[in-house]
């Protein structure tokens, strides 16, 4: 009666990139949904223009956060309506999801900064790495007196350090 056995019907994930860098792209959003940073290292497929892609990604994350808070099977408290705005850290939140072609890791700070890293699907747990990236953000962006909160990040030192770090983990 076993039709599937051990074989998979979905295509196998792509091989790691030749350079050894398995990071695809990274986004940073603030609490209002403004895309502060978009870094791309390996993205052969592009289905939308940049602005729509950022909006769609933020919408996906917002809805998934709402979904996980609603679906939390261990909390018996009244969770309110689906889609209701929630404070950062309130309720159950997701930290990653995996498809057959990529893995998306997610972190949200108490101030509402969202960091998203898209990597190869076989990547392990990246929660500590995202916390380190948040530390890089604090050190090189927040502490930069020339940076205006809410505007896109244009800090070369942060970009360089980030590229180096992501190349090492993914």
């Amino acid at each position: 009666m076993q039709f599937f056995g051990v074989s998979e019907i979905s295509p196998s994930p792509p091989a790691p990139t030749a350079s050894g860098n398995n990071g695809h792209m990274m986004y940073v959003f603030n609490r209002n949904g403004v895309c502060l940073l978009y870094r791309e290292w390996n993205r052969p497929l592009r289905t939308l223009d940049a602005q729509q892609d950022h909006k769609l990604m933020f919408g996906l994350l917002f809805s998934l956060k709402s979904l996980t808070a609603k679906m939390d099977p261990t909390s018996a408290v009244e969770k309110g309506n689906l889609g209701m705005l929630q404070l950062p850290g309130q309720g159950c939140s997701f930290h990653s999801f995996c498809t057959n072609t990529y893995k998306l890791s997610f972190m949200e700070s108490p101030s509402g900064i969202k960091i998203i890293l898209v990597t190869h699907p076989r990547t392990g747990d990246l929660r500590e790495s995202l916390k380190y990236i948040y530390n890089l953000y604090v050190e090189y962006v927040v502490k930069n007196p020339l940076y205006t909160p809410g505007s896109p990040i244009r800090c070369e030192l942060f970009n360089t350090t980030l590229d180096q770090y992501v190349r090492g983990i993914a």
Partner: protein
Amino acid sequence: MAAIYSLYIINKSGGLIYYKDYGSAGRMDTNDSLRVASLWHSMHAISQQLSPVSGCLGIELLQADTFDLHCFQSLTGTKFFAVSEPGAQHMESLLKFVYELYTDYVLKNPFYEMEMPIRCELFDINLTQAVQKDRVTFLGR
């Protein structure tokens, strides 16, 4: 004792055709389960659009603080997803086994109309047996 918290089956249009709760602490009423299923259908589709490489089939595993959500989509677009404890094993095998039960007890039922909610007693009975923890452990053999 069940190995999963709950199981959902969605048709290819995103409508909820089966929902079974096996012990969640928070109750979800019928309307909420319908909304959750429809939202998952949309999120699954959007995740395909945002893929950096071609050939993406959508979310297979969503990891949250207190649960994991495993999803299996058949070739015809029916989605089976189960909410389990974080790190629970053999969930992919369990969902494929549920797919077998679905084909055997639902699709082969001449009284069942496609895309409608599942109300097949044999499916319920066999599904309840399949999700028991000791049965799920054997899926890894």
